[in-house]
């Protein structure tokens, strides 16, 4: 209840401020659709890429590679979270 009230007040303030701003230029949807069309060209022919490399392997390894490359930051984040837990004495 309290949290809901506070969040409602904050959201109403944000909405009020946003309403005070005039509308900006509308982006033409056709331009966005052309971007999507490029995606279509790429992703519809990904099946052809599977001739040279297995797509499932890429889909499995790519997130893992991203995680490993950023492992240092992830570990720092975990250590930071663990450091907030009293009693663990992790620095």
């Amino acid at each position, binding site marked *: 209840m309290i949290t809901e009230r506070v969040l409602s007040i904050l959201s109403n303030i944000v909405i009020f401020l946003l309403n005070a701003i005039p509308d900006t*230029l509308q982006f033409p949807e056709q331009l966005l659709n052309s971007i999507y069309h490029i995606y279509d060209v790429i992703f519809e022919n990904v099946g052809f890429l599977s001739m040279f490399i297995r797509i499932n392997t890429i889909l499995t390894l790519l997130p893992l590679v991203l995680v490993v490359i950023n492992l240092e930051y992830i570990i720092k984040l975990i250590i930071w979270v663990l450091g907030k837990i009293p009693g663990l004495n992790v620095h």
Partner: protein
Amino acid sequence: MKNHKKWIPFIIFIILCFLIFSKHGLIEVKAETFDFTNAFNSKTIRYYYYNNPNDKIFTNYSNTFSSNKDLFVKNSYSFEYLNGFRIEGSSSDFNNYITTHNSFYANVVIHFRFYYALDMTRQYNNYWNPFYAGEQWHESSSGSSHSGGGASFGEDNTGDYDILENEDSLYHIYIYGQKLDLYRFTEGFTDSTEGYTDVYAYYSKDISVSLPSSYYPLEFIHDLENDKTDYGRYPYNDTSKKSYFEFKLIEFSSTRNDVDFTSYYDSDSCLIDESCGFGLQDNSFLGYIKRIWNEIIDIPNKIITFFRDTFLNLLKSLFIPEDGFLDSIYQNIKSLFEQKFSILLVPYRALVELFNRFNNLSNINTNNFIINVPEFTIPGFNVPIINSTSYDLNNVLSNNTIHTLWILYLDFLDVFLIISFLNLTWNKLNSIIGAQIVENEIMTVTDNDVYDSSTGERLFGRINVSKSHTYNTRRRL
């Protein structure tokens, strides 16, 4: 110690990966037994079944009960195995069942219906009081028999049931010190060789109970008529298998699924044994004192229950927003953003669409080796330079040799990628939590002053610096 703690986040990361991948089915966890350890007072229950029945077989129970009867479905025979599970149904169905079902897993036990089988011969010498309308017990020369139709039972059923008017002859069942209202239903088995009967008293409201501390095998009741196993039973204080905690199974499958039944299980509940006041009511003065004592002992539990259930819910409602509340705020602000700053949201929408496409990559047809060449025309003129065409490379792969080579190539590539990934992981780990090899040089400094041999005058000094040796140390980062 300090160095060991550096491995903690890495271990947590591995555990998280395992949990995530096991959740998505990449790692299957199967168990032969269902462990109730955490939920049921550290008691492991194993279930199993036998191929060969070797115990008593109840005689033909010819009475049929209404289909609303939740707990038993009687057909012709019921077979009960010692330390096995009980199957009810016709003998042919039973034989078919045991030949086709070798093992299964039981998941989740909630919503107990409580059975307590009472040995009514202690109370009643000749006959049983009909506890609901329409039923009559008749004493016969060979034993007791049961006539009349069956009655459904429980709150949702429409059968006949009644609460006994004669309180003196009523058995009261206590669970956690709470007196239960009884909906009585009697049924019996007639066995001319043994002459015993079972009487079941039901508590129709769903309660959560903890299983007894003593170990008894878990039984499952398979409804052959409907081909489902909805109920299991856990014999309580079993020497004669007359008393059961019968419970409804939520899921009965061939693999073990992790189900969170902590919401159903009252972890603060005590065991169902005499120390909790469970059992037949003792009408003596001592029993009365015992009941009062149990009520007094239970007061702290009731206070805790009050604070946990009501106070905690109140706190939750104060600070935790309802479902959908945050979502509605997000949608409102998002729509307003799109209206005001639509041009700024284009990169965001393009990025989200890219991630969605990438996410759906696993659903694409990976054997789509068709090269589509679109039509190219001279701009401004409707003259095609290249006509649209397509080449299907599957025709090349239709050759078995080429196909086999292609699969081998893909496999080698997979191995190469995985090894490269492992190498990357190893190098990264070494750079983060590994050690550096540091070469240390030991320099030797000597003074070689030059003196005049005749006068002994020091002419000049000379310092020699030489590298005597090197050694390596591992420097922890």
